[in-house]
């Protein structure tokens, strides 16, 4: 790595993780995370005010920890990047305010960046420069999107998204129905390994020939699984938890991977990256691997720690902004809970709030 590669600190507070990462070009120097997930567990979902309070408490200590781990002084930084959106408004605001204060105090350029684009860009820390274009499948408790990135700093196009629940949300809800706790992803993944994915034929949402090719729907699946379990319970029978977990998980990952591969083929893109918390799901990785190989597509999935929300992904995109000479944000930068994915970053002077909030509809269930 060249010595003149950008040294960037990234701050992420869009949901319940206070993340601060430091990267040098595409090399990860520090990735400090403080999570409030345990506080939310008893509520069965992220409580916005609890998340915001936890961010405030953890913000500066996490930044200081990241600087210490990286063994650098804040004065050496070439820029400070922060998630400007999308996400929980109050949570975003803590990170944006901290980033602005550091950037101002240190006299460094500030880059307000897009959370979704960051999820894609983080793969550079694992597998080197992203090929252009890259197809990206982002799946987590907050998002399920298929994005085509032609230039991660300036050209990210939405191909499809969930029309109702996020994939990770479906995992959480089914885990709740099965009394498995929160978050649902890891426990369902674990139980599914001992179950039969073909035991129960759960529906594949939006998979008809007339359905939108790249959009997702997990609400119908969630209801179908819940009904199936209730019927068993009502009949006084035992619920085969492992088979339910495996069959439910198979329905989710089948649709995700099939649509992602199809989008790659249709667009003539030979790279697929998968990011977001659900990318840690072992069956999603295995099935994507299998289908990509068959289709001649190179699959890139960062390690699980980089797939969940973290500051390193924000730093990775910030570093790319510096490297490509993108204009910095200004001191009026605001947190935008519905920042469209088509804005990989928020350059200075763009505070007219002119973008149409087409994602507003899905925002409601994005973080509920």
């Amino acid at each position, binding site marked *: 790595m060249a010595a003149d590669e950008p040294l960037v600190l990234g701050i992420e507070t869009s949901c319940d993780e206070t993340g601060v990462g430091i990267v040098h070009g595409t090399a990860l120097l520090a990735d400090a995370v403080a999570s409030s997930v345990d506080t939310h567990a008893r509520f069965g979902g992220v409580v916005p*005010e609890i998340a915001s*309070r936890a961010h405030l408490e953890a913000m500066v200590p996490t930044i200081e920890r990241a600087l210490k781990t990286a063994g650098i002084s804040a004065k050496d930084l070439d820029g400070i990047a922060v998630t400007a959106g999308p996400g929980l408004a109050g949570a975003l605001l803590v990170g944006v305010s*901290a980033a602005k204060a550091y950037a*101002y*105090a240190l006299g460094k350029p500030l880059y307000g960046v897009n959370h979704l684009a960051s999820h894609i860009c983080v793969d550079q820390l694992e597998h080197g420069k992203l090929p252009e274009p890259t197809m990206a499948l982002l799946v987590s408790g907050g998002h399920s999107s298929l994005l085509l990135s032609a230039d991660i700093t300036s050209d990210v196009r939405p191909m499809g998204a969930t029309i109702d629940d996020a994939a990770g949300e479906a995992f959480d809800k089914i885990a709740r129905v099965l009394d498995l706790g929160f978050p649902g992803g890891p426990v369902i993944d674990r139980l599914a390994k001992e179950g039969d994915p073909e035991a129960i034929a759960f529906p594949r949402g939006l998979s008809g020939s007339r359905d939108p090719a790249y959009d997702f729907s997990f609400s119908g699946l969630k209801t179908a699984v*819940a*009904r199936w379990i209730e019927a068993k319970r009502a009949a006084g029978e035992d619920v085969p938890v492992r088979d339910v977990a495996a069959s439910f998980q198979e329905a989710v990952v089948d649709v995700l991977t099939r649509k992602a591969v199809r989008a790659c083929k249709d667009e003539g893109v030979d790279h697929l990256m998968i990011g977001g918390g659900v990318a840690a799901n072992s069956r999603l990785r295995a099935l994507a691997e299998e289908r990509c190989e068959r289709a001649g597509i190179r699959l890139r999935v960062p390690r699980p720690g980089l797939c969940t929300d973290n500051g390193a992904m924000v730093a990775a995109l910030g570093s790319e902004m510096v490297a490509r000479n993108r204009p910095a944000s200004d001191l009026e930068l605001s947190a935008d809970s519905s920042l469209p994915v088509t804005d990989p970053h928020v350059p200075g002077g763009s505070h007219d709030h002119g973008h149409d909030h087409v994602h507003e509809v899905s925002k409601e269930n994005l973080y509920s």
Partner: protein
Amino acid sequence: MDTATPAVTVALHDGEAVVASSSQVDARRHGELLLPAVDLVLKEAGLKLDAVTGIVVGVGPGPYTGLRVGLVTAAAFSSALGVPVHGLCTLDGLAYASGIDGPFAVATDARRKEVYWARYEDFRTRAGDASVDRPADIAGQLAGLPVVGAGARLYPEAFPDARDPEHQSAAALAGLAAEKLAGGEGGFLDPLPMYLRRPDAQVPKNYKVVTPK
């Protein structure tokens, strides 16, 4: 600086007097307004932030989101510059600015038909902790007392003797802090948020059965 109330207010104080200040009242844009205001105040004084030897921040009470903007900004400045942060109760700034030399109260808008409030012996001396209550529930105890702050104007039936100022000013907060620092008396709070309310968090009811009975 103080962002605990609808005012986004910043002032620079040199220990003797206020050098420059900026106050904007906009309950919804604390995040956007604060840093440009800091920049403006410093530019007016012809100084850079690294000339600052200490930061004073209003810790509330305040309704959540805006309050955090000032606190996290102060903490980040402190960390980046290596200077101390002194917390002060936001209501103390209003009290100090009023200059009232006898018993009175301060009340700010806590939304949800409540006020944050505290009683004062005089403009420098708070009597007891700040609380959050419905105006009608405290009108009796504050009967006959002047009440400073926007909370008084919002509820004239409960607080008929409303007094200025209506809004917080960082200039007053800095003046109070400079007095405390000069007197060596301390009396600062930790720069941590004073919410006075538990977070809104509804525990979802046990999983909702979707099959019709």
